[in-house]
């Protein structure tokens, strides 16, 4: 730039003591002239300059929210709950993609059995069970220490994360299940999934959660296979009557879980 605004004029511009049109001209020049722009910065109160910079620094140093977290917040979840959910290990992309892979394999296995969805229906409810174990097995949990120290802690944490795991499992399990033609058969795993997850949590009040998960999973597979082998298609465990019984059992277990919630506070 071949010419510069003289100090005095620039000073009066900064102090807003100059005409509108001239101020506009100065602004047009400032856009193009590095030297005059730097001179303008030097005329701003140092204390004010440093204060604003301090606030920029504070936010630059803040960790950026994970993508999942901001989506959840967009849906109206409070910040702290959104972070709890986003940091739940069982909701990471790698975990969810491996679940989808296993379930697609289950679907393929079912189809090689003449379209009998039994393999898929028995396996699908185990997804949230394993998810809950992953969510609470602390070596992989970045929030374990925080959870231990948090005043809300315990039961609230368990509820939030179990719900998040259930919801995520539901979404990823629905996708492969759509490969089946018959909706009644493909959706039969929903209530069993809820039942075994709650049962796992209830047992976790008495023993290690991984032990609880193994016991519940084994029991579920055994009961499902034995009943499916024995029963005629009309009284299938995935049929309407059985589903009602499963729903009632799940509701009862939720009540038990709430009754025993104090144990989680001491976890």
């Amino acid at each position: 730039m071949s010419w510069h605004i003289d100090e005095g004029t620039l000073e009066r511009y900064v102090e807003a003591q100059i005409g509108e049109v001239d101020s506009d001209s100065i602004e047009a020049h400032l856009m193009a002239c590095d030297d005059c722009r730097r001179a303008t910065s030097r005329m701003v109160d140092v204390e004010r300059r440093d204060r604003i910079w301090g606030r920029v620094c504070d936010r630059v140093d803040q960790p950026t929210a994970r993508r999942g977290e901001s989506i959840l917040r967009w849906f109206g979840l409070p910040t702290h709950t959104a972070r709890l959910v986003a940091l739940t290990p069982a909701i990471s992309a790698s975990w969810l993609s491996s679940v989808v892979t296993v379930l697609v394999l289950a679907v393929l296995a079912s189809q090689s059995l003449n379209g009998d969805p039994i393999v898929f229906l028995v396996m699908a409810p185990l997804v949230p069970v394993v998810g809950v174990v992953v969510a609470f097995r602390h070596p992989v949990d970045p929030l374990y220490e925080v959870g231990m120290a948090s005043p809300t802690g315990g039961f609230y944490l368990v509820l939030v994360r179990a719900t998040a795991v259930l919801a995520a499992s539901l979404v990823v399990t629905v996708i492969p299940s759509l490969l089946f033609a018959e909706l009644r058969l493909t959706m039969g795993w929903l209530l069993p999934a809820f039942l075994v997850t709650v049962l796992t949590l209830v047992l976790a009040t008495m023993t290690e959660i991984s032990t609880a998960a193994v016991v519940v999973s084994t029991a579920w597979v055994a009961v499902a296979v034995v009943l499916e082998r024995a029963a005629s298609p009309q009284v299938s465990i995935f049929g309407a009557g059985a589903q009602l019984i499963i729903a009632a059992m799940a509701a009862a277990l939720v009540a038990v879980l709430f009754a025993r919630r104090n144990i989680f506070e001491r976890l």
Partner: protein
Amino acid sequence: MSLAELDDTTDAELVRLIADARSDALRALYDRHVGSLLVRLSRRCSDRAVVEEVVQDTFLAVWRGARSYRGDGSVAGWVWGIAVRRLIDTVRSRPRLEWVGVLASEAPSAEELVLLGIEHGDLSGALDRLSPELRAVMRATALDGLTTREAAVLLGIPAGTVKTRLMRARRELREALA
């Protein structure tokens, strides 16, 4: 690269360093632009706290979005574009904020007229004779580079009014300079 060396770096190079998460480069860019941003925004919004917040958000956006600077056009223009759009967002979310587009202006002094060292003809006088409303519209569109719709938000008037005022301003200027 030390802080003293950053002093000689061009704005565009600073932005590239910021894209590599160099916070000292952000500081250097901040020091260069904070003054003109503060004054320029203050002429468009009378609320000091809002202006500071907009400046703060602007440099945060520069920090996070340095990668998106394509290198065409000046860094000053890019930074100002971010700042003025932040200001519009703030005004939009807080409709009671006051836009200072219509300050009473004093007659320009002789000193101010030779300010630019350029013979303007009577452009400066013609601009000064424009009514404050017309000048505000001219500034928002021609100087600040806003769209009609954005100018409408800042000035708190309908977009159609921005268009008609802009046409009237151009006609008056043409007549004054003819």
